């Protein structure tokens, strides 16, 4: 069957069908040609090889070769598809996924540094406020160390990408400048030894420089780095997901083709040699069948695991980490609002804008916003009347009771946080500066902490889903390192063993 006009397709199906269907008039002349020497002689450039092909051992050899070739393609296809699952798991699970968490933590630490500086300046020489000035200084230093570590990690991870690398470099430079400004502001503040409330103008002007650098330059860059890691995860996911599904189809089709080739050779042998079964070939057929089913199932599970890790784990971790980052700057804006009366309007507006990113409900002013938040939080989970990060999250956890319950706690926490914010602003507007600062350092601070903790719990739930799926994916691939080559090799050996005794009858 190897004469030029009959060159079989690599899959080995054409001659397989031809052999079974013969003699049949409706098969095409080229594919289904019966072994008629006259027909193939006409265009054949190498007629000398034609007779060999038609001998029984020649046909057995050809069919066995087709089977072996099919097994090899099957092995290659499965190997490639499993490689895609592995790559997807490794990029999402080990590189970009953790980078998202690392850069989100960096944003959080940066933003908290600036908030702590504002607190230190606001508290002044007072001692009885909240957790106190020393604690704020301590936290500033702790965050500073965290940022330093995160920046080192980020610069490591950004190696391959020039834009990212320059962004990290700019962040490193800016971070150095920020520390100088912030520490100078705190030193001047120390020297001024003012009572709680806005510090002297000189301190404010240095702090303004610092906070502008932080909010307009450093924080956006850190945030964009997180988004960039999210982009890498999404692109990898889509590429690998598509490749795995293509691989699944290829493995399924090639597996069925291999089975068909094995059936053909067995039918041929059974007819020629009057033996009903060939045990070796039968076992080879079963092996290929089991391998095909197992590989298709494995790839299906691999694709689904990757999807779950990305859609139910990663997406929410990313979104909620961003919400947490923005929440922290909002808390800082509350201190800045009290700290710098001249800019109070700006900080209040920024606070409202950020609030609406976290949980959107229509209303152009804070007064209307507070009312809106009370209303939509009370209506959840009966109805989702809000947009923004928490709105998206509400949409995606609709069928997940654990996450839904955690989101309810987040929303309640957010509502109390906004209520305390309202209280603080009411006091500030009533010229009760000291009480407003007391509220900021007391109730409001505790409210924020509770909200933030609830958010962290929710992120942990999604992170758990993510880790679990990645781990499950890794574990399911474990045995395939030896199972796949072992099974392919066994099938090949069995095919050879199956045809050998028949061929030896012709020696």
């Amino acid at each position: 069957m190897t004469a030029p006009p009959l060159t079989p397709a690599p899959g080995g199906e054409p001659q397989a069908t031809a052999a079974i269907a013969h003699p049949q008039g409706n098969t095409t002349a080229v594919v289904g040609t019966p072994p008629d020497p006259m027909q193939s002689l006409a265009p054949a450039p190498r007629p000398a090889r034609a007779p060999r092909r038609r001998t029984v051992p020649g046909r057995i050899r050809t069919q066995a070769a087709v089977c072996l070739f099919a097994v090899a393609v099957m092995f290659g296809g499965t190997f490639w598809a499993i490689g895609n699952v592995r790559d997807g798991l490794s990029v999402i699970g080990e590189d970009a996924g953790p980078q998202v968490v690392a850069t989100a933590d960096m944003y959080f630490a940066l933003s908290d540094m600036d908030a702590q500086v504002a607190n230190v300046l606001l508290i002044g020489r007072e001692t009885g406020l909240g957790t106190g000035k020393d604690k704020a200084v301590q936290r500033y230093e702790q965050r500073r160390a965290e940022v330093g570590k995160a920046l080192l990690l980020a610069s490591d991870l950004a190696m391959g990408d020039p834009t990212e690398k320059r962004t990290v470099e700019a962040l490193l430079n800016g971070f150095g400048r920020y520390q100088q400004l912030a520490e100078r502001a705190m030193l001047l503040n120390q020297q001024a030894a003012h009572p709680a409330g806005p510090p002297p103008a000189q301190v404010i002007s240095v702090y303004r420089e610092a906070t502008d650098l932080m909010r307009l330059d450093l924080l956006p860059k850190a945030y964009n780095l997180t988004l960039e890691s999210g982009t890498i995860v999404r692109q990898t996911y889509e590429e690998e997901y598509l490749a795995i599904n293509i691989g699944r189809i290829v493995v399924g089709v090639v597996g069925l083709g291999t089975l068909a080739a094995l059936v053909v050779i067995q039918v041929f042998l059974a007819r020629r040699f009057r033996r009903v079964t060939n045990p070796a070939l039968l076992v080879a057929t079963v092996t290929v069948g089991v391998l095909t089913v197992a590989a298709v199932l494995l790839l299906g599970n691999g694709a689904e695991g990757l999807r779950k890790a990305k859609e139910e784990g990663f997406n929410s971790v990313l979104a909620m980490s961003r919400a947490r980052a923005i929440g922290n700057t909002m808390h800082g804006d509350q201190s800045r609002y009290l700290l710098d009366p001249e800019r109070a309007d700006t900080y209040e507006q920024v606070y409202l804008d950020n609030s609406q990113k976290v949980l959107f409900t229509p209303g152009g002013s804070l007064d209307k916003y507070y009312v809106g938040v009370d209303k939509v939080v009370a209506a959840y989970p009966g109805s989702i009347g809000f947009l923004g990060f928490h709105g998206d999250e509400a949409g995606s956890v609709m069928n997940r009771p654990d996450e839904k319950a955690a989101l309810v706690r987040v929303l309640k926490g957010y509502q109390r946080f906004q209520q305390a914010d309202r209280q603080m602003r009411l006091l500030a507007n009533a010229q009760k500066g000291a009480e407003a600062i007391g509220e900021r350092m007391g109730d409001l601070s505790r409210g924020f902490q509770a909200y933030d903790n609830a958010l962290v719990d929710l992120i942990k739930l999604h992170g758990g889903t993510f880790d679990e799926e990645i781990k499950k994916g890794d574990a399911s691939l474990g045995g395939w390192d030896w199972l796949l080559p072992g099974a392919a090799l066994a099938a090949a050996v069995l095919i050879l063993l199956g045809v050998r005794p028949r061929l030896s009858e012709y020696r």
Partner: protein
Amino acid sequence: MRVRHAVIAAALVLGVSGCGLAGAQTSTIVGKETMIVGVKIDQPGLGALKKGRNEGFDVDVAAYLARKLGAKNVVYKETKSAEREEMLRQGKIDFIVASYSITAERKVKVDFAGPYYVAHQDTLVRASDTGIDDVRDLAGKKLCQVTGSNSWRRVKEERKVNVSLVEMPSYRECTAKLADGSVDAVSTDDLILAGLAGETGTSSVRFVNAPFTDERYGVGLKKGDVAACEAINRAISEMYLDGTAKELLGKWFGRTGLKLTVTVPQFEGC
């Protein structure tokens, strides 16, 4: 024949289920040779039509972004505020750069890359009016109210500043009327004011430089084109890193005395 049928049937089953999964990717504008960009034609400094040519900060940004996305030609098309979402949805334009603020409501209908700049509501007054340092100093002054615009509310209703409103049909008119004293202040997006001030002459007016809102100018995209959104964000990062943004801001608004931010804004996310 039976075997072949079985193979074909199996391939179809696998293929169909595979396609359903693989079809998640939507088409993207990345790599299009000619890009059609929605811009404004009546906002000096941002998007204006002068002698048949589109010009302004938005127009220059659009050209930069289109080039980074791989386009060889850029066609500008006017997009009125009311039809932006629909034009994107129908694919009549590929993306929008037209002082288009990102809001939660709009995000339901379109996707936003960027922001490529965060404008702020600020106030323009006569250069000779030195007593105004902050929006609260506008108490008792005549503030321009443009028909259909909400900017005045942020002063009178949200900040509760006691201004008297003078209604005008456009911000261009408002800015022009500063000189003769029929209005004392115009308050809206700083880039829009800067563009208008550039037209009427920058020496007679000044910015209060007391911004009180964030207007995040985004690049509007058809809903679902995440690949373009990500590519544009990357291009915006590069635009700021390579100095183009600083140069373009200086070119269009540098003479107006407005405080410009020349570092990359915090993106909205795709």
